[in-house]
């Protein structure tokens, strides 16, 4: 709820009448009772961060964050002892009022204001008395905290791409030689290698579309469709070595181009946290549905590779997560369950079962396990998102 350019008068009743919306109606009865109430309007700007404020006691409370600065900012309610964050309002626009709602427990609170181009400010410390339990605070992760993980991920992906480049070279040679038995085997090896890299949603820029794009946009007969899936389609649909040789060569060339491009890229620091669920979101959307099965029937193997990639990302973030996320053990047990359900479908002869050929109960179990682990992975991006922290913690 954002009200733009609405100047608010000083008394609570006027404010709430003017701005009566669902989110504000909580204060309506206080207003209508006619009794004087402490204002929950919190003014923030480049030179003040909440001013003097008070609450009557513990319990559910909605602050109205009134941004009177000339620029955007992020406002947090923190524990001033250690900088742990109780509640956060991001991207407040100048002249806007944004609600911040939480259950205030007994403890000490302060607003922290980060306006673009200004130093971080921490406002007055306010103590809420009693022995009430409220919304818990989480220690924020700083930009500095995440830099080493982003660097490690970059090195991991670079090493993985080097392996991949050797594999796509072998694959291109198989296709050129017309050895499709070897080509099919090497195609799977290389594709799974790519899928362990933990990339999703633009990590590899336009290269991902060229290396691993599906046929949807271009159509299966389009010369613009390139990459692993294009080659899979040809290998498993009886296309000739002559037709597929340039396809495999282009794949190999694009992998090498990605390898050359990648080390110089600056990875957004929030990416590692985001990818912890996005990689498996993609697996559910494209692999477990069978959408990206162009003939090899190996989308379960791809999902396993995605689990491996997710496990790597989690291993990076583990030091940040252990003190902050009580659901972490459930993430690992969920990944283990999903992995074992998929491995059960790996035939003794090494063949994979296409998802469309799974018995209904096995498919339901896999889909359910994937949904469950995604649910438990979801908080990680929020928890590990790099945040501004005040210097004095």
């Amino acid at each position: 709820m954002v009200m733009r350019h609405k100047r608010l008068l000083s008394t609570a009743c006027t404010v709430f009448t003017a701005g009566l919306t669902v989110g504000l109606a909580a204060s309506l009865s206080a207003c209508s009772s006619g009794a004087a109430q402490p204002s929950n309007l919190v003014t923030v700007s480049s030179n003040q961060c909440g001013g003097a404020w008070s609450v009557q006691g513990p319990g559910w409370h909605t602050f109205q964050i009134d941004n009177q600065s000339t620029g955007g900012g992020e406002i947090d309610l923190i524990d001033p002892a250690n900088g742990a964050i109780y509640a956060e309002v991001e991207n407040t626009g100048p002249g806007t009022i944004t609600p911040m709602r939480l259950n205030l427990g007994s403890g000490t609170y302060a607003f922290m204001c980060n306006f673009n181009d200004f130093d971080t400010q921490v406002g007055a410390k306010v103590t809420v008395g009693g022995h009430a339990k409220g919304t818990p605070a989480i220690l924020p992760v700083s930009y500095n905290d995440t830099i080493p993980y982003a660097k490690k991920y970059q090195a991991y992906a670079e090493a993985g791409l080097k392996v991949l480049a050797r594999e796509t070279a072998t694959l291109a040679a198989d296709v050129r030689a017309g050895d499709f038995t070897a080509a099919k085997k090497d195609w799977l090896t290389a594709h799974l290698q790519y899928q362990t890299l933990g990339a999703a949603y633009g990590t590899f820029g336009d290269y991902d579309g060229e290396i691993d794009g599906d046929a949807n946009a271009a159509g299966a007969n389009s010369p613009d469709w390139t990459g692993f899936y294009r080659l899979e389609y040809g290998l498993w649909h009886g296309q000739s070595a002559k037709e597929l040789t340039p396809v495999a060569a282009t794949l190999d060339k694009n992998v090498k181009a990605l390898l050359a491009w990648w080390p110089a890229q600056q990875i957004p620091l929030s990416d590692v946290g985001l990818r912890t669920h996005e990689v498996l979101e993609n697996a559910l959307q494209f692999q477990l549905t069978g959408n990206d099965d162009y003939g090899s029937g190996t989308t379960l193997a791809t999902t396993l590779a995605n689990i491996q990639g997710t496990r790597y990302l989690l291993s990076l973030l583990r030091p940040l997560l252990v003190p902050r996320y009580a659901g972490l053990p459930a993430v690992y047990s969920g990944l283990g369950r999903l992995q074992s359900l998929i491995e059960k479908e790996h035939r003794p002869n090494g063949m994979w079962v296409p998802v469309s050929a799974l018995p209904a109960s096995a498919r339901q179990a896999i889909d359910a396990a994937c949904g469950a682990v995604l649910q438990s992975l979801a908080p990680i991006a929020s928890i590990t998102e790099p945040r501004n922290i005040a210097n004095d913690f």
Partner: protein
Amino acid sequence: MTSEPQEPSAAEPAPEPAGPPPGRRSFLRGLAGGVAGGVVAGGAGGAAAGYFSRSAPPAPAAADAAALTGRLPAVPFHGKHQASILPGPTPVTAVVSFDVTAGDQASLTDLFQTLTDRARFLTAGGTPPPVGISGPPPDSGVLGPTVAPDGLTVTLGVGATLFDDRYGLASARPARLTTMTSFPNDNLDPAQCGGDLIVQLRAGSMDTVLHALRDIAKNTRGGMQINWRIDGFASPARPAGTVPRNLLGFMDGIANPSVTSAHDMNSLVWVQPGAAGEPSWTTGGSYFVVRLIRMLVEFWDRVDVFEQETMIGRRRDSGFPLDAASIHATPNFATDPTGDVIPLTAHIRLANPRTSATEPSRILRRGWNYDRGIDEVGDLDMGLIFTCFQQDIDRQFKAVQTRLIDEPLVDYISPFGGGYFLALPGVTGPSDYYGRALLA
């Protein structure tokens, strides 16, 4: 499958349920009625159960509140029976079949407890707690920051397949529960039949139903997986004061046992204590039959109205039996033994012959219309979500359906899905949960 703690509605004055745009009117309502949450929670909940039901019309206060907010009042969740079984159709519903994917009986219990917690919260409404920076919001936000109850009810039923060897429940199987029978003229699609569990959500608006479905699915992720689902709606009565129509254009569900008659409900709907062969945990439950019935409306619309009326046994415009002059008149089949007025094969005559011998086969019938796109030849895929409650499927639904075999109407309808379930006994209080007596 952990359940988020919810802030009860009473923890702070509840914001207005989403409804009319803010303005002076809302402000006055806040003053006059306390807060809307109070109206909702304290409204005549029993009356809500009578929404669209002839036998218990909504109390004026609740009706006013619903009219003002565009939302229905809360239906109390706790009780000996599930609160959703007796009320007439709400404007919208979703019927969703799930298979249980929980690994063992402890996880199954966890699943049922989570289902209970979610249903308890969603039917009462309230404000989901903010989570700060610790994760994505716990609620989809589809109903705005405060969840309005909107007459939501949740019906939970168990299918025969839950009593296989997975959870050690084989010996607890309800005596009259089987998988669904295929009748002559059925065209059942296995992918749209059966299920370990059935969840029917009903409410005043589709957003309320879909919000509840997303909430339940999210909080039970890993424990159960959707098998098939269908959404439905109940039409307004046209003309007002009559009975809602199905998509054949006929009023539907006119003759039903009286939900306010304890005798009728105890002899027709609720599983009774000590019922022959029934495990004791089923007492207070009700067998729940769901049949998904396509109506071949293009074909039907090419049939003249007299032929339509003799197939049904009622006038299309008025809903009157062909031998009477009011909707709720009892057709007098005894004085028409050769079917000169109401043919012997008319739907209403076969379904309910109105004899003392067929009295025990009566069912509590609830129908919703469905509409979901087109078929392979471009005809409209629409029809009826037939549901009924009873205490014995053989004695009731199957007996009725057996009488209906080869009725003339079968050419215009095609049953394609559904299942047989036992709607569990009610959740009796805050410490009870669905299926406690089954799982304990």
